[in-house]
């Protein structure tokens, strides 16, 4: 009896500190979870109960192209971002602090600058009569303006620009956590710089590359602003299609169903990323 009584005192009836979560939970519950669930409900009730919205989305070649294009753009953006970010993160991780802080300043400035501002700049830079085409023609490299905007090239440039900081910054952390002595040991073992890169540096930074790459991929999948402004009509992405279905076509059922598909894919990849990062954290703690 006394043991039970003591246990009753030791374990609080209301979990400690839960009260502080109430405002956040009310906000998120009422204005995030409920609206999103309502929207999902609409995908199977509007205009009539049933799965006809999903059947329409998955059965139509036009929509299939949008899905394919979304994954294609996200994949291309992710690959280019990783390839560009890795050498920069590598240098940032080991360069003298004074130089690194200048570079960090540039990265933060680009990241914090208004998204529309950056996209607007790219629109002007990339257009047919824009600076880049004029420079290339002036240098005699091309004699016809390159189509740099309203196509995959434009979306890729604009998106990579936005995603780079999200890849570089975490990767710097991963690279800084690698002991430089490990690479010295590899060199003395006879590994040429290429072998040391392929067999040691790359595998050791792979968790960071995977986590960052997955994040960039997930963010790219649902991106709206940049593809809408820099992409072409022939390579529309999912987010833009959803917006169009709701705003222009007022087709809530179809739009909600497409949104649900985007949500499921995003959340599945997010869960995968959490497992990657989580397992890395566990390994790091051991």
């Amino acid at each position, binding site marked *: 009896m006394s043991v039970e009584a003591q246990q009753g005192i030791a374990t609080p009836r209301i*979990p400690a*500190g839960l009260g*502080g*979560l109430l*405002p*956040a*939970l009310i*906000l*998120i519950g009422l*204005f995030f979870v409920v*609206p*999103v669930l309502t*929207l999902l409900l609409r995908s199977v009730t509007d205009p009539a109960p049933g799965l006809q919205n999903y059947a329409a989305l998955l059965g139509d070649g036009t929509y299939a192209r949008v899905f394919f294009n979304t994954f294609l753009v996200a994949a291309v953006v992710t690959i280019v971002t990783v390839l*560009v970010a890795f*050498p*920069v993160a590598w*240098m940032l991780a*080991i360069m003298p602090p004074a130089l690194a802080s200048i*570079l960090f300043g*540039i990265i933060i*400035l*680009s990241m*914090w*600058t*208004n*998204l*529309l*501002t*950056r996209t*607007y700049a*790219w*629109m*002007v*830079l990339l257009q047919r*009569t*824009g600076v880049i085409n004029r420079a290339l023609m002036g240098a005699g490299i091309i004699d016809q303006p390159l189509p740099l905007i309203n196509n995959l090239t434009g979306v890729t440039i604009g998106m990579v*620009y936005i995603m780079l900081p999200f890849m570089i910054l975490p990767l710097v952390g991963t690279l800084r956590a*690698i002991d430089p002595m490990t*690479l*010295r040991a*590899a*060199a003395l073992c006879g590994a040429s*710089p290429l072998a*040391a890169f392929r067999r*040691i540096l790359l595998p050791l930074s792979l968790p960071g590359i995977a986590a960052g790459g997955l994040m960039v991929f997930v963010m790219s999948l*649902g991106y*709206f*602003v940049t593809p809408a*402004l820099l992409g072409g009509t022939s390579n529309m992405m999912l*987010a833009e299609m*959803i*917006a169009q279905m*709701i705003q222009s076509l007022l087709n*809530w059922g179809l739009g*909600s169903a497409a*949104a649900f598909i*985007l*949500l499921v894919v*995003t959340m599945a990849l*997010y869960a995968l990323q959490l497992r990657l990062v989580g397992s890395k954290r566990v390994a790091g703690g051991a």
Partner: protein
Amino acid sequence: MLLDYDRLGWLKVALLAFTALVAAFLLLPVVFIVLLSFGSSRWLAFPPPGWTLKWYQELFADPSWIEAALTSARIATMTAILAVAIGLLASFALVRGEFRGREILRGLLLTPMVLPVVVFAIAIYAFFLRLGLGGTTTGFVVAHTVLALPFAIIPIATALEGFDKSIEDAAIVCGASPLQAKLRITLPSIRIGIFSAAIFSFLASWDEVVVAIFMASPTLQTLPVKIWGSLRSDLTPVIAAASSLLVALTLALMIVTALLRRKLQT
């Protein structure tokens, strides 16, 4: 040796050259837009045939730009205050609390950051249409607070995790009430986290486009909506002027942040 800056040899030259190129790529649009805003060509020719301030004059002569900026500032400020207050309470619970499902709740509160904004935008748009909150300041602030909350929770919770709770306990042993101890000891110690949270939530609202596009009404437009609308019609240099002012604001925020951090850390 690959991680020894001074032992990379020719590889260092190549990598630094590449890094400099990427830095130039990152700076290019920002610098370009500022130069363009002073250019005299309506057709955005570059380099500009001459220099002028007329786009800034046009910008300030148009009350709809000023009004949009003020609307954005008002909404972003309210969002930042709300997000920091709610985020602070939530962070204490998430870091200090001992209850089941803590990680799940943390994940739930951070979800608005990973869910594609467009999904949330149409969901909250439909929801607010029913509640009659569409196109109202309240609607904007609530929706933006949902989106800003993760950006408030992450820095505060990180700062709180790095704070040794026994210092707060020591204050209580010294006779402070738990609330006094939190207010006078803990909060000042995590002020860098709170400050970052305020900046990030402000920016999350200030720069938010997608929800704003859906929610905006003819009478209530935020700055990004105004820019968006102009962008879709034509690429007038007035946008460059507005954008340059935003870049200036960003730079000011960065400098204030750097200075305050330095001051707070000592």
